């Protein structure tokens, strides 16, 4: 794995310890990452979910998206999940030999076009997405 990917994973492990963080390195120096038992916040019917995402070989220079959650993720008040939530996806997406595939809900939030370059680590990006989700 590329040094940037290793550093991002170290930060994620540090933050989410003792929850399991599964790492599946890819051939080009990136990794598929899945974290178990992450709290998703009161708007959701479920207390926790696993979170899956891909760290590319450009990490942490690139924007990390999308994130994947358990396939039955739903809002507690019964409202439909709308875009950028997308049901019927799977993690990891595309071909990923050797990585167990989980059916998933995909959440795709891209970094807004800021006037200046902003580097956001995968951990910070994940926390920002979770915060945004907790405000649905």
């Amino acid at each position, binding site marked *: 794995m*590329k*040094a*940037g990917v290793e550093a991002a994973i170290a930060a994620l492990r540090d933050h989410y310890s003792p929850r399991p963080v599964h790492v599946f390195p*890819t051939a*080009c*120096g*990136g990794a598929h990452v899945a974290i178990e038992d992450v709290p998703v916040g009161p708007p959701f019917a479920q207390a926790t979910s696993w979170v899956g995402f*891909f760290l*590319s*070989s*450009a990490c942490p*220079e*690139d*924007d*990390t*998206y*999308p994130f994947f959650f358990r396939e039955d993720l739903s809002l507690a008040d019964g409202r439909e999940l709308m875009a950028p939530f997308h049901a019927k*996806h*799977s993690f*990891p*997406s*595309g*071909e990923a030999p050797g990585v167990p595939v989980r059916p998933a809900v*995909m959440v*795709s939030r*891209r*970094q807004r*076009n800021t*006037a*200046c*370059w*902003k*580097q*956001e680590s995968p951990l910070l990006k994940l926390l920002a997405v979770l915060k945004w989700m907790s405000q649905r």
Partner: protein
Amino acid sequence: MTRKCELRMAQPMFDDLMAHLFPGDGDEHGAVIQAGLFQTPDGPVLTARTLVLAEAGKDWVPGNRGYRMMLARFVAQQARQCRDEKLVYLAVHNHGGRDAVAFSGVDLESHERGFPALLDLVEGLPVGSLVFAANAVAGDIWLPGGARLTVDRMVVVGPGRRVLTPAPDRRRTTAGARYDRQVRLFGATGQTILAGSRIAIVGLGGVGSLLAELLARLGVGSFVLVDPDRVQPSNLPRLVDATDRDAMTWMVAEGRPQWMRRLGAALATRKIDLAARVIRRANGNAHIERHFSSMEERPVVEALKTCDYIFMAADSHRARRLFNALAHQFLIPGIQLGTRIQADPETGAIINVHTAARLVTPTGGCLLCNQAVSPTRLREESMPKSMLAAQRYIDGDDASAPSVITLNALSASQAANDFLFYMTGLTSGDAFQGTIQARPLDRRVRLVEPRSDQHCPDCGPGSRLARGDFVPIPMVD
């Protein structure tokens, strides 16, 4: 034997330093430069990062042995900062004279007395001293372990390039009949500078191919060529000297069996080899180093570090990201080239065509600050194809974007001229340093002023700027 090294400095710092050392009083003045350092096969290069002027009467006082000296407290403070920031401590002062300069016996004695303790203080980094005349510089650099370096030249990276040496170069320069017409513009000295220059072209598609032709005809002496692709039939209208044989057109044609098309694609000429052929024809003496890979490989980065100028003619944002880091970290100026052809998504009608030549220098035109690198595009370029498809992000393949040789020629000629007049030092001091956009549909040219952001990781105060080998390079381990 004493090895040689180069010192590199951006123009604004040089101007500040000269104003401080030569205010017109004929006296000696002092300063400290904190510099990055990087290694190349031709020797180490020091990159001036911070200039600290020694204030007369406070940090710069009458000396015990010499005429003037820097106060020990000031020296220790600067050296500790160098240790903490992983920069090379360089004490600076000036002598009189103009085109030649050397350390005095008193100067050298002070190095013998002071540098061993300074080396201890900076913990494993070199320390050194520079002495300036109005148009000359000499340097004495001490490495940990006892080796020494002399500074044999200083390159000032500004709108035009300027070189200072310890003494005037007395070698005669002749250009011969071949270059007679262009020597009438920039002189035999200019021609010699071009012959001694080393440039990189990253991306040998439509724009890079024209650059190879232009720069080789000018007489540039040394090339680094980087491209991971082979010639395809759809490239033929834009690549200089390319033929159907280079593209293996008959084998890869539609309707041929799969195996034959694959074989044809594998046998097609590498774009770097085509460009090397073009360069050889124009200048048989040129030195050419080829890299059949993307830019993000360690050997490519090491080759780029040895260049005087980088032409960024690859389309990818990953390449742009890396180029921007190298330009700032190693103080290598360059230019990024692109063409944008916008069609109305509904009707398909062309609504905008422009070509852009963006100067990227240590003091302006940062691609991060000017929104020329997008984290979203970096992401898309870094995802496997099957993942992009599964996430339904496929929005247009770059390979099939419109591309026309005459548009490529606009930005290639702009860039080649920018390099020519930079390298020979002929660019005016107040030349426009931003992006030049040519808009051929309305026959207009737009000048885009560059911006810069204090928090930028490449060009801001806390950035990788001029740090050399002491900080990692993005995406390259």
